């Protein structure tokens, strides 16, 4: 029986369209999903269309209830959409061909252990590569390298239950990658990890994805993860996609450039002037010194400097403040970042510790 019964077509066959052209890794067309009925109906995903090309690393960002996890589950066929279609490498996951599509897809879902804690790390990799349709003996070397890359070699023969939380997270990632899936969904991959664990996972995830040419969809509250790992960001709010672009483009369009000026000569009168003429975002007084953060772009910077000179301000420190995804997300959705703060209470963002002024778009202090 061995070797005589292939249970699925080779992914390289299944992932091509009949015309021989390479289909995108993921094509979501007009997907909607409602939960509940009557007055309790919740529209979790609202007419979402999204195409993800092969080899891209896409972040799915949004607050709780934005529809991220539901969209991922629709993509996996774990949740059946009410409307629309999902095609993975050209195969409709709700149709008869979904088994072929599954050969190329794996996922690490939010809050799930995702593997067997009573088996060792290596046993998990072997088991799940088999379940993913790959003979584990043929990828034994790959497993070794995966373990080495994730610093798990020494723990290869340790039961997962005996590992730290951070290591369990890495084992979960390794088991998802063990079968060589081409499209990988990671829903909150840093959930519950400490700072160091999150940092390691982000670094290795990015490296593995790029080197292996994976298509990765990362859903996360944690904007640091998205910004560090992804090339492209899809922002969701209220079940809809509200922004979809490269990280660089989103950041450049954020219109959140600002300068932070520190001086001992900034007084109430000047603050009033700055508030009237400019986008004064935050003020912090530290002893004799006051630091202001003013949103300025282009020539407005010169106007700001002229204003400071006219007020006889001796500038002690000037720093530019670049926008981050947190700012972009706020400007696009109007959702405060503390709403989408990660489970551990962390948010990304610049190092501003200034007190926001009024409602002028200041970020949380």
């Amino acid at each position, binding site marked *: 029986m061995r070797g005589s019964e292939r249970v699925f077509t080779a992914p390289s066959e299944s992932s091509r369209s009949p015309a021989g052209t390479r289909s995108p890794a993921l094509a979501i067309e007009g997907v909607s999903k409602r939960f509940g009925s009557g007055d309790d109906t919740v529209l979790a995903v609202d007419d979402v269309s999204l195409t993800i090309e092969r080899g891209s690393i896409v972040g799915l960002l949004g607050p709780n209830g934005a529809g991220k996890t539901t969209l991922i589950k629709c993509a996996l066929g774990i949740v059946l959409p009410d409307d629309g279609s999902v095609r993975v490498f050209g195969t409709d996951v709700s149709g008869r061909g979904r088994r072929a599509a599954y050969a190329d897809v794996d996922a690490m879902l939010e809050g799930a252990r995702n593997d067997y804690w009573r088996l060792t790390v290596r046993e998990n990799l072997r088991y799940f590569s088999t379940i993913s349709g790959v003979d584990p003996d043929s990828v034994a*070397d790959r497993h070794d*390298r995966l373990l080495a890359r994730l610093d798990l070699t020494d723990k290869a023969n340790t039961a997962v239950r005996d590992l730290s939380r951070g290591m369990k997270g890495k084992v979960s990632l390794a088991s998802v990658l063990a079968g060589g899936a081409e499209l990988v969904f990671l829903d909150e991959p840093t959930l519950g990890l400490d700072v160091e664990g999150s940092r390691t996972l982000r670094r290795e995830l990015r490296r593995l994805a790029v080197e292996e040419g994976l298509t990765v969809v990362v859903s996360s509250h944690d904007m640091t993860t998205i910004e560090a790992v992804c090339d492209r960001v899809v922002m969701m709010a209220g079940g809809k996609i509200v922004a979809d672009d490269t990280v660089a483009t989103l950041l450049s369009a954020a219109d959140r450039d600002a300068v932070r000026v520190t001086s001992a000569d900034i007084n109430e009168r000047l603050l009033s002037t700055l508030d009237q003429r400019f986008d004064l975002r935050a003020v912090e007084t530290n002893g004799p010194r006051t630091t202001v953060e003013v949103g300025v772009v282009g020539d407005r910077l010169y106007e700001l400097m002229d204003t400071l000179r006219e007020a006889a301000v001796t500038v002690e420190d000037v720093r530019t403040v670049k926008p981050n995804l947190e700012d972009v997300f706020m400007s696009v959705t109007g959702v405060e970042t503390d709403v989408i703060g990660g489970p551990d209470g962390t948010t990304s963002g610049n190092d501003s510790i200034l007190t926001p002024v009024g409602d002028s778009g200041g970020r949380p202090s």
Partner: protein
Amino acid sequence: MSRELDGSGSIASESGSVTGDSAGATDSPSGDDADNPRPATYYHLARAVLYREFLIFVRYPANAVGGIVVALFFFGVLFYGGQLLAGQALADSLEGIITGYFLWTLSVGAYSSVSNDIGSEVQWGTLERHITTPFGFAPVALLKGVAKVVRTFLTSAIVLVFMLLLTGTRLSLDPITVVSIAGLAIVSVLGLGFAAGGITVLYKRIGNWLNLLQFGFIVLISAPVFELPWTRVLPLAHGSALLQRAMVDGVRLWEFGLAELALLVGVAVGYLFGGYLVFHYATRRARRLGVLGDY
């Protein structure tokens, strides 16, 4: 995989186990077949599922040992209590009681392990990975069920040996006959286990209540198939009657009538298929409701 391990570098480049530069997407690693992941076959799937079950069994024997101890305890209560209350009447029917108890432990083991296993997979987040497998969930679930049955046969055999030693009873234990008939008898229970597992996927908290069904197996095992022939189509009933004849009267497998064996197979396949259908539609409804894997 269309994205094969290409030596490209990738994770191999730093470990030094692969030659070739990082840009060479088609470079091959030297000395291994890491660049050629082979598709897994049903053989590999069966091996993986059975091996996992074996590992859990030998590595964490407490569950199995606990089950054996509990089964023997209840049998001890039944045996000694029955001796006090019924005396000779119990002794006259002891062979039948042991056979029935053996089948009951098998049934309970198969049913609860399958239904509980599905519930556990839901909690662990591993159920989705078994559903999104290129093999399809049916073969995986069936193989997992087979693995549970094999494990249950081992533990129930130990219980049987202890029961025989405890009571000094002799039974006919032709392995082929006993394994075939008892195996087919509990396949129908396996079907019930799948149905219960499916319902557990839909309604998470109902799992413990469904475990109460295992006490209903006592009724099925002792069903009056001679007085009420229609009860033969119920799970376990016909298999129990045949097992009694095999173990108590010494009838061998090939000495049973073809119709009797056909009915045994038919009931087994019917309930297994029915149970799988319930599981299939329950998981499909769970996918529709968005509750598959939620816990």
